[in-house]
């Protein structure tokens, strides 16, 4: 591959409500057995991008733990491999990453010391499969300066938290609006870009000079008439998990057979860190309906239209409906959980009820001592 990869995983969003207290969005558990960043990382390795930098900032402990060994994505290489860049104080910089462009600019050495001609920039919160080589081919064929990977949102979906793209019949982007109040098109940017490495260095040096920090605002929008910026519309599933609603919806999408088959069975695979958990166990009293269950779970109760992440214990006589139970949660006997996201490493007391009402998803965070129940 002629490109290096950069994954922007520093982000946090208040749209994630309490879920982001604990970790960066890219480290959010997804689809039972994965983390958000697994999708971008697997796409990188499946596209033969062999040198990838992950830029982290916000609450990166959970993410760093996940990335502590790069072998799960086949990045354990002598040449290239996985680099994790957290902001550091240097002789000429004492700032945190002040924006996406600033995050990359603070690591310009990584770009300067590479020899691959192109850079693939992706975000750590997209759930999708994409061969970046196809984007690169498109980029070369169009003689583009920057290619933005876009996708069309379905009618009725809320576009207002994305960058809205308008392209001409040649796919050249003529208008780019970041999170506009009035939406003019449903073609949105997925936050995946392909750009020549030298051009990226040049543009970022300019940003540093002018004290600008945001890749979308200060590069894409600012240069949209001066540089040839193209839109590559991707096919297949794409979703972003940066709000509670979209996080819930994305997870629940995996209860659909076609989406499961696309991600779990179709080549290429999505990789993740291996946890050495035993197979899921169903004791007498377990009733399962339309649910996903990960390894290490023990079920004694009723689970319906829900996703149990790794190592969840469901006690006797419990009912779990339309809910997402994150990793390592212990649910005491006779508990009722409906329309909830239960935060990881939780212990839910027996005989309690948690229901998200009026279409709202309730986030359950309880810090009970597991062994005193």
């Amino acid at each position, binding site marked *: 591959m002629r490109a290096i990869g950069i994954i922007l995983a520093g982000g946090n969003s208040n749209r994630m409500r309490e879920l982001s207290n604990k970790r960066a969005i890219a480290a959010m558990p997804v689809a039972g057995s994965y983390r958000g960043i697994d999708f971008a990382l697997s796409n990188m390795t499946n596209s033969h991008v062999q040198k990838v930098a992950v830029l982290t900032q916000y609450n990166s402990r959970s993410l760093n733990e996940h990335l502590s060994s790069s072998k799960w994505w086949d990045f354990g290489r002598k040449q290239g491999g996985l680099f994790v860049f957290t902001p550091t104080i240097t002789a000429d910089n004492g700032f945190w990453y002040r924006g996406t462009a600033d995050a990359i600019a603070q690591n310009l050495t990584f770009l300067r010391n590479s020899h691959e001609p192109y850079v693939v920039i992706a975000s750590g919160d997209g759930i999708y499969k994409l061969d970046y080589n196809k984007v690169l081919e498109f980029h070369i064929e169009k003689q583009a300066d920057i290619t933005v990977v876009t996708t069309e949102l379905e009618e009725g979906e809320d576009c207002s938290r994305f960058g809205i793209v308008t392209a001409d019949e040649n796919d050249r982007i003529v208008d780019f609006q970041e999170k506009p109040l009035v939406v003019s098109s449903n073609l949105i940017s997925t936050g995946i870009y392909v750009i020549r490495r030298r051009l990226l260095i040049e543009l970022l040096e300019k940003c540093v000079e002018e004290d600008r920090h945001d890749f979308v605002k200060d590069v894409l929008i600012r240069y949209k008439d001066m540089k040839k910026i193209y839109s590559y519309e991707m096919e297949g599933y794409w979703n972003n998990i940066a709000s509670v609603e979209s996080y819930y919806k994305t997870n629940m999408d995996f209860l659909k057979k076609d989406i499961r088959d696309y991600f779990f069975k179709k080549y290429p695979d999505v990789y993740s860190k291996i946890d050495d958990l035993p*197979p899921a166990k169903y004791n007498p009293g*377990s009733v399962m309906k*339309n649910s996903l269950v990960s*390894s290490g779970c023990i079920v004694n109760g009723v689970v319906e239209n829900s996703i149990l992440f790794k190592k969840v214990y469901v006690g006797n006589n419990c009912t779990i409906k339309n809910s997402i139970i994150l990793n390592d949660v212990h649910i005491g006997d006779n508990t009722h959980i409906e329309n909830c996201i239960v935060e990881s490493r939780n212990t839910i007391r027996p005989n309690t009820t948690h229901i998200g009402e009026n279409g709202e998803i309730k986030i359950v965070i309880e810090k009970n001592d597991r062994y005193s129940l």
Partner: protein
Amino acid sequence: MIKKEMIAMLLAGGQGSRLGVLTSSIAKPAVSFGGKYRIIDFPLSNCINSGVDTVGVLTQYQPLRLNTHIGIGIPWDLDRNIGGVSILPPYEKSTNAEWYTGTANAIYQNLKYMEYYNPEYVLILGGDHIYKMDYELMLDFHKANKADITLATIPVPIEEASRFGVVITDEEKRILEFEEKPPQPRSNLASMGIYIFNWRVLKQALIDLSNQPGCDFGKHIIPYCHERGDRVFAYEYNGYWKDVGTLTSYWESNMELIDIVPEFNLYEEFWKIYTKSDVIPPQYIAENAVVERCIIGEGTEIYGQVYNSVIGAGVTIGEGAVVRDSIIMKGTQIGERTVVNKSIIAENCFVGFDCELGIGEEVPNVKFPKIYTDGLVTIGEGSVIPNNVKIGKNTAISGGTTLDDYPSGLLKSGESIIKAGDFR
């Protein structure tokens, strides 16, 4: 300088012919166990959990699955700069080329491998038991007794002791006598086939007996050292230890895992068992499915009913199918409305629609009455069962079968269809 206190040699070359068609194309240590694992995962995990980071795995019979499973040892953290796991197949020498003719002969042919690590002690292991054991405790015992050889032993009920090799010891646990399958056992301490040798003692004994045909630890090396007056001790292990050498014991020990609190608990944080997982996604249990008293591996999709069973990773159980008291291994598909009773179905099989497995009277298997017993239906790796057939008890199937193989759509109890693999 390279120096390892103790290295392990894991004997994984045997076919395990009492497992019938399950081992027709893979070695016994590579047979799946418990919905996710392979038998060899237990000794390998015990090694790394005991701090033994250098393991030679001796392979011979059908090693491909073992080789791909072990790879460079990543799942067990045995990918090391110095040491780690090495696969040791028999190889050609300038003067002769010889298969491994016995357990000790296999070790003898790899003297150079052991010498390279300059060990004090060598741990000899088999690849056919399910157990969790801290070999370091056994080594402590070995050192405390200034032993030359220590055998791991386990107390068994005295009425069953005649099935094992038993040892008779003095109060200090020094072994006085060995009895191989004694009709009238005088002790209930059975040898587990696990030994710690002082490296020098092992090396000398292997060289001394290098001309012994089919040189075996239990039959030749240990008696030889014992007669010579070496200090041979018995270490008593008191945990779960299960031989999975026969189809019945294999089936039983799988079934024990689904007890509410199993005696052999895989869910404990302590002493984890590691394995190579190439299937990561969660399992899906459909709207009309039933899962009761079972364990199920990653990526499996259940549309039918599963009772009292151990289901591996990447399995599909079709709508309306009913699986009872069975073991179904990785990647197998069970067709819609098919009923599976007390069966062992190996990896990547395809069972068609509307079949019934494990029906009728129990009749001894005609060809192998000692192997296919207890009413089990055993189906070897990669087998295909066509739609609409009925299969009786104590039966075995291996290979792609078509309706023509089933007279009037039935395989009678006690019959076999063997079309593929080494076990015939």
